[in-house]
């Protein structure tokens, strides 16, 4: 970790990473204090301004109930940021631990793991998630459970591969000759060297998580109305697309920008964390 901090201090950050971090900073600001940025209450109806196009009073226009789209897009940032984090952290942690374990111990655990991975990746990711949410019932909590139940596989596979590479390194042999305990070798020596691709993948995966959350929201399986969530906003506006496209366009643009922010950050992080040998 100190290596990374020292590198950050010594080198100017690349422009794509700065751009990505700026986009994420906006999202975080909207999450921390939506009231500062949103001109209206995102849930307040205004029957004098139904389906009004973008104007000085409503920069992004209003929906069929007269709710301000700008305010709703800003309010949705909190939900989507939560989705981006939780839908990667839970499967990321679970998968990394499993990958660390099977990579280190190998043998039967690894063989069972391999078959399990084959089984899970046979199904399209989204179909499997939708199936699990359909069984558990719609809602964000169940969505996280479904994403974790499916998504851990990708993290575990990545981590396992890295652990296999690292554990054959001579520095691990040196640690064993020095009599270090297995937990110390796994967590202090292997993990810091194996975690980089997993971290980078996780940040990039956050972009996909937002798309997934929005997709499930759109399908009515994720965040539930009237909660503002970008996918839900798009689903709300789809019937008015030809007459009031602004209801759909602005949350859609928010999804694109958030995804871009995570992707750029992920790429920048990959460069930054590269270890020199």
């Amino acid at each position, binding site marked *: 970790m*100190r*290596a990374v901090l020292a590198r950050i201090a010594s080198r100017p950050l690349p422009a794509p990473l700065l751009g990505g971090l700026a986009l994420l900073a906006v999202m975080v600001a909207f999450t921390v204090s939506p009231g500062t940025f949103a001109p209206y209450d995102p849930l307040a109806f205004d029957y004098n301004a139904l389906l009004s196009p973008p104007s000085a009073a409503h920069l992004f226009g209003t929906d069929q109930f007269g709710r301000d789209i700008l305010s709703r897009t800003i309010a949705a940032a909190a939900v989507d940021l939560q989705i981006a984090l939780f839908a990667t952290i839970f499967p990321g942690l679970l998968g990394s631990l499993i990958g660390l374990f099977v990579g280190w111990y190998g043998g039967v655990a690894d063989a069972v793991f391999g078959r399990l991975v084959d089984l899970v990746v046979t199904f399209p990711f989204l179909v499997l998630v939708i199936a699990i949410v359909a069984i558990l019932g719609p809602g964000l909590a169940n969505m996280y459970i479904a994403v974790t139940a499916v998504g851990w596989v990708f993290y575990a596979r990545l981590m396992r591969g890295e652990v296999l590479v690292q554990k054959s*390194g*001579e*520095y691990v*042999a*040196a*640690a*064993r*000759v*020095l*009599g*270090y305990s297995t937990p*110390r070798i796994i967590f*202090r*020596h292997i993990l*810091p*060297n194996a975690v980089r691709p997993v971290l980078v993948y996780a940040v990039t995966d956050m972009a996909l998580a937002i798309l997934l959350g929005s997709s499930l929201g759109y399908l009515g399986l994720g965040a539930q109305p009237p909660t503002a969530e970008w996918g839900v906003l798009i689903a709300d506006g789809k019937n008015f697309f030809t007459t009031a496209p602004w209801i759909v366009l602005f949350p859609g643009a928010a999804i694109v920008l958030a995804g871009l922010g995570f992707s750029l950050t992920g790429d920048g992080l990959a460069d930054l964390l590269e*270890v*020199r*040998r």
Partner: protein
Amino acid sequence: MTLLAVEGVSKRFPARRGLVDVLSGRPRQAVHAVEQVSLEVRRGETLGIVGESGCGKSTFARCLVRLYEPDEGAIRFEGADVLALQGDARRNFNRHVQMVFQDPYGSLNPRMTVGDTLAEALSVHAVVARAQVPARVRELLDLVHLPADAAERYPHEFSGGQRQRIGIARALAVEPSLIIADEPVSALDVSVQASIVNLFLELQARLGLTLVFITHDLRLVKHMTHRVAVMYLGRIVEVGPTADLFAAPRHPYTQALIRAVPHVKPAAREARRNRQAAVTGELPSPLKPPPGCAFHPRCPIAQPACAQAVPALEDRGGAWPVACIRVSG
């Protein structure tokens, strides 16, 4: 006097079996990396182990520190059975027997500073009190002739020779009595090799270390070891005092190896050309070692009897043991 005694140690690696092999009931093949090696390491000496690449010397080194568990045999360190050690006793053994690795680039954790690497060894084994760790790290760096500010830097900031010094400092951190050096200089430039070799000699004199020095470089062996064991295809074929053994090698393989050492002086080169050719052919596959003496297919003095039985490592009328039925007196 004996610090480490090795008795009949063997290590085999099972080969992969294809489906056809399994179905036809063929027995599982194994690579015989180390076969029936017996050896003793005396306190304070430098023991060289030489042999061609692939003769099992690195595997043997890894068996000594239990990176590999031998399939047969016993290893005794100061009388205690090393292979039976568990838990704290095993950690204590690790404190006394350390290893220096071949690859100076891969043997250091790239994510830890040199200071952290050394401090970890010191604190895990509680070599010194916690407050004294930074001072001891500086002492260790000084011992291997690295500047004190090396502690804050990462391995990638050092050259190969410097990294090997760090590896040596890490081994020394736990104050071992025996260091096993597995080809510690073969990855380095020749000019750097000399400085590392001299460091080993200096440390041995200063700290009273016992060294097992594994290499394929006969000149290094001649320069720095007291005794030498010659390995061929997993077995020791000859073991004796370095000076005597170089002056009058007894085993035909040792003779061929010593004859193969390149000479710088033209006269010596000329003399060598006029002598018998060095060993010819390739090292046989350790999956299917030749029957009897493993060296007989390449041996200039082989007889039919050589293919009958594995020759024992015995004195055979000389001052040190040799495993060849053609040798007498």
